[in-house]
């Protein structure tokens, strides 16, 4: 596919430790097209944030990309260093992190932070930058943007701060936005505002979005496609409706069934036994087999299944057969 904005191919991130080399991201491949929102879900430690950080070149040492490729708009960016990568970051990839307070500089007025970003990446004058900063704040729904542009981050509420961060991420008009748990720190009503804002801006500008979150409800409402990660590997990748309603991977199926929403009216929630293995102690074969109700000898013995060696949708030797399909 040539129209993919972001293309990640067999990405492997490694962390060398004294005892072993850990792989928080293991052979992950996916693409995001123009105007598409790809949801990345998984539990803590599944490697979803690490994947995002690897794409924008923000891996903390000693973590490093060991193999695989990252292509952005037809250009390979995983090997870019220092300045070259800095030009990509902010200009071509915008970022929204979980905690809006830590992603804004508390000592600078928000207007200055916005103009600084634009001046660094776009060839415009300072007055033009300021004009655009006001327009950007206006667009993310900050009331009286022209007068609030000289406020400091602490003068805004949590939801308003996250709007500023979104304005900051989008002000240089990047083609890809990586939003890492953008609403986790916010209240439900504010979360709904932020998600709808993100959806609207991306639709209008054709920005591709990688939405990393653990909240299935947010994914269901915002994403076009979903990637489910487990222990650093892609477990399932497909259109949002199919993955949530007709999961093929036993892990996805268990995950969906264990949300209280899915088991309305039942006294007990369905639960997946055990917990995700630590990276240093991954089992042989499929990483999910010790918790899987359908595990067989092949799962324990053969190398971990991959999307492309299975049916392209779920990385599982024995994917869940759906009742709908049988009928």
């Amino acid at each position, binding site marked *: 596919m040539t129209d993919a904005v972001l293309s990640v191919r067999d990405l492997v991130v490694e962390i060398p430790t004294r005892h072993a080399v850990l792989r928080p991201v293991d052979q992950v491949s996916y693409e995001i097209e123009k105007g598409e929102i790809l949801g990345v879900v998984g539990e803590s430690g599944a490697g979803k944030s690490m994947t995002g950080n690897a794409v924008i070149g923000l891996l903390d040492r000693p973590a490093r990309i060991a193999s695989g490729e990252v292509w952005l708009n037809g250009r390979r960016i995983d090997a870019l260093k220092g300045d070259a990568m800095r030009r990509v970051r902010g200009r071509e990839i915008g970022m929204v992190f979980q905690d809006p307070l830590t992603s804004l500089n508390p000592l600078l007025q928000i207007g200055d932070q916005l103009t600084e970003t634009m001046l660094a990446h776009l060839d415009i004058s300072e007055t033009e930058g300021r004009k655009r900063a006001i327009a950007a704040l206006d667009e993310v729904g900050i009331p009286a943007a022209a007068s609030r542009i000289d406020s400091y981050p602490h003068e805004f509420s949590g939801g308003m701060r996250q709007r500023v961060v979104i304005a900051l991420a989008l002000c240089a008009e990047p083609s890809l936005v990586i939003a890492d748990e953008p609403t986790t720190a916010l*209240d439900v009503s504010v979360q*709904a505002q932020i998600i709808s804002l993100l959806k609207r801006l991306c639709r209008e500008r054709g920005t591709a979005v990688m939405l990393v979150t653990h909240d299935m*409800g947010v994914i*269901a409402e915002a994403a076009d496609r979903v990637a489910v990660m487990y222990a650093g590997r892609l477990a399932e990748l497909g259109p949002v409706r199919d993955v949530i309603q007709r999961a093929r991977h036993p892990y996805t199926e268990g995950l969906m069934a264990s949300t*209280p929403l899915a088991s309305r009216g039942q006294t007990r929630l369905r*639960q997946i036994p055990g917990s995700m293995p630590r990276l240093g102690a991954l089992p042989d074969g499929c990483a999910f087999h010790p918790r899987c109700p359908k595990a067989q000898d092949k799962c324990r013995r053969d190398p971990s299944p991959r999307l492309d060696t299975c049916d392209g949708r779920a990385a599982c030797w024995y994917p869940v057969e759906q009742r709908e399909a049988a009928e």
Partner: protein
Amino acid sequence: MTAPLVSVQGLTRIFDVSKPWLNRVIERLPKARLTAVSDVSFDIPEREVYALVGESGSGKSTIGKMVVGLLNPSGGVVSVEGVDLSRETDPAKVEAVRSDIQMIFQDPFASLNPRWKVRDIIAEPVAARGGDTEGLAERLLEQVGLAAEDAGKFPHEFSGGQRQRICIARALASEPKLIVCDEPTSALDVSVQAQVLNLMTDLKEEFGLTYLFISHDLTVVQHMSDRIGVLYLGRLVEEADPDTLFERPAHPYSQMLLSSAPRMDGFGREVEPPKGEIPDPINPPSGCAFNPRCPLASDLCRAERPELRHLEDRRVACHHAEKALGAGAEPA
């Protein structure tokens, strides 16, 4: 109906958030008071789960702390088993009731002493009263799905879900009747959350426990509770059983909260995002605190605060609840 286990009447808590004395004099500032909880009343019958939901700043945790006795109310009464803990003078009575109340906190990393072994952590509520702790920790650990050998380990050797199980074991040690759970699963992943919620349900059946369940997660609350109180800016705005509340919420705030919660079947759903944010609790709006964000707000709402009143099988504090119910009847 027997008397409820917990009865909360007119509970109010005001925090003094004034600047220091000298600043007030120099800058001519008045004293600032934050009303975190205002005139909240509810009962929890024995063996039921009462849930408090609300967004941040709604006062739900403050109520939880007052029920346990970690904070004293500024006004109103919390009585557990008929004893008002903040005013009761007979130490024997207070002691007896205190041991019937336990609490589970949100963050299982911060609520366990990292220097204590799990055995000592779990036995502490009993040991503090001079009770017999022989084999207690081991027994409780098995009850919450861990192994008896885990008693000799330290908290850092456990995952978040396992730590929350240790917290639950500790809460069970003194054989309480009431457990106040303040966001017990908010820090946990979905699959672990399911395990912990199931465990809490099982233990409730086994020991006949009563829960005051505090959460911002509507789906968890709907699953767990027998009755739900919705809080907004320190006041109870609606109280109903889960089916009534989720099928036909009567307060415009409950309606807004429920419609903005993400849904698993809400593919590409375009919700009209709710307007505005929670107002400043130091200077709350006049009349009904929700009026600046409410689609049904009228002059009456701006002038006069609605009292909590009975409407069908719920309690609701809204002048226009009947109208809201009619408007909310549109297809969900």
